[in-house]
């Protein structure tokens, strides 16, 4: 178990290093010279050269990369160009907001998706078909569009739920019960959007996985020895069908985070995704770099967590990786 996890962690580190390196060189490839932008059109070539030397931009690209990587690894992420605030503080506020939204929606969409998929696997064909129509539609709905439609119905028409931000304008003044209620009211629409678009794919996958297991001989044996249908489903089918689902969990982190980017943007949710979009639109490079690296790290951490869960559910995998 542990060597396998260590190997996984090494792969994860490679992913993060890959993202960071890619980001660095892409920024250098992109059109636009920061020194000329900094000094303006009236600068003489000598001034440009001097400024270039001060910023160490005249050294070989590899040297610059190593120096930048060292600073980045030590957490010196620089200052946001657009807001003048330290990048670390800016993103430090955003991470809890993203974890709250994406984490909760992950739990909810898996619970509901597995439930719907399991019901489909044992339901009558007509129910199965109706649910399939629903899940394939949810699977195809873009998150930002669903968000707009929910805002239209629940904010503009019903005037029931807030559509912007994580807390009301007076959120800082509240405490205790009202504070919690305010937070929850702001969470409902973004969470519902992200969960709904997640359910479709999970239910479709679970349905297939359950069907694969239901057809196997050991299930017929369990039925033949007179076990109650629910016991067969729960103890024999679900336990085996959940292994591919847990693997899917690991693979779905990038997609979930991506969905989160759009949903955070529409609902003005102050998370990493929204910061990233804002920074991209404002060409705020230090923030873009840091937010990209941070997203990669969150995704990799999620993958590692999912690998742990798979080993916990399936002892066979645990033993196999121990032997390897």
């Amino acid at each position, binding site marked *: 178990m542990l060597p396998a996890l260590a190997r996984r962690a090494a792969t994860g580190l490679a*992913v993060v290093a890959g993202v960071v390196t890619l980001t660095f060189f892409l920024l250098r490839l992109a059109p636009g010279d920061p020194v000329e932008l900094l000094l303006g059109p009236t600068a003489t070539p000598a001034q440009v050269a001097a400024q270039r030397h001060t910023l160490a931009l005249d050294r070989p690209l590899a040297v610059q990369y190593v120096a930048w990587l060292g600073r980045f690894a030590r957490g010196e992420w620089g200052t946001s160009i657009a807001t003048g605030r330290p990048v670390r503080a800016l993103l430090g506020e955003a991470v809890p907001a993203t974890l709250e939204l994406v984490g909760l929606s992950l739990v909810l969409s898996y619970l509901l998706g597995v439930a719907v998929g399991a019901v489909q696997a044992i339901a009558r064909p007509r129910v199965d078909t109706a649910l399939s129509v629903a899940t*394939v539609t949810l699977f195809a709905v873009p998150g930002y*569009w669903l968000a707009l*439609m929910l805002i*239209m119905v629940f904010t503009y028409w019903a005037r029931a739920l807030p559509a912007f931000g994580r807390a009301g304008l007076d959120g800082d003044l509240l405490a205790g019960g009202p504070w919690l209620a305010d937070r929850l009211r702001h969470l409902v629409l973004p969470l519902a959007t992200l969960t709904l678009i997640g359910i479709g794919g999970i239910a479709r996958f679970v349905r297939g996985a359950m069907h694969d297991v239901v057809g196997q001989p050991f299930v017929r044996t369990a039925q033949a020895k007179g076990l109650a249908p629910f016991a067969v489903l729960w103890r024999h089918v679900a336990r085996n069908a959940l292994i591919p689902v847990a693997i899917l969990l690991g693979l779905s982190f*990038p997609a979930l*985070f*991506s969905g989160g980017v759009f949903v955070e943007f529409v609902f003005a949710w102050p998370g990493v995704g929204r910061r990233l979009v804002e920074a991209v639109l404002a060409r705020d490079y230090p923030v873009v770099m840091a937010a990209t690296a941070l*997203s990669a790290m969150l995704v990799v951490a999620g993958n590692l967590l999912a690998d742990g869960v798979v080993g916990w559910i399936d002892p066979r995998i645990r033993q196999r990786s121990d032997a390897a």
Partner: protein
Amino acid sequence: MKRLLRDRRAIFGAGVLLVVVAAALAAPLVSRRDADQPDIVATRFLPPLSADARGAIHPLGTDRFGRDVWTRLVYGARISLGVGALAVLLAIAIGLAVGAVAGYWRGPVRALLLAFTDIALALPRVVLLLLLAALWRPSAALVIVVLGLTGWMSVARLVQGEVRSLAARPFVEGARALGISRVRILWRHILPNALTPVIVAAALGIGNAIMLEAGLSFLGLGVQPPTPSWGSMIASGRDTLVNAPWVAAAPGLALVLVVVACTLLGDALQDALDPTRGSRAPPAL
């Protein structure tokens, strides 16, 4: 093919896609071109199915510039479907090349390419898209390249597996015994047989690509206004959600319909091309 024609999902998916593609190709015939120079005050925010002062019917209403939403939807389909299709073609070309080489050449080449594919697969795609789209001036061509560069990994893995198993078959050994070069064996004998899973991946990938193009355009990083794309139409409808909800609703519904069609067609193709899978899990619809 017979299995496919009996599959309700395939009929529905292919039917929807045919209608949408036909409407996009025949856009000037099925829409009103004069909608670009209207009397703005009189014709803006008309609800669906209403007529303007000149008696012209607007089946999906008009937006805040008095432009006919149906017309923009049909012209937007050209951009959205075109960008999606080209992006998937690019992704398949890259995926085929990487997958074929990784599947046929053993040793360090395979290990290196597979490791690279795995790492690329673990990257958050939208983050990469945002990064790439931020660095260059947004355009349809950039979206195609960016979607292609971030979408080839699953194709590469599929092709790699297929090529690997085909390379062990007797007919490949026979070809080698005849003294045919490796590149020629790969190109003429292995790749044509490895294309089956790629067709499924293409059908599923095109829906995804259309959705991502719309997402980038929604954020203002894709196709630039006033060129209509479904994503930028949803974005512009966002500002008029209160007085004219149909402006955002119509392109979104079109998007859902097309992506559902692609997904169902892909599912049906998968079952039809791989009978062992189909016999275990009954079709979903």
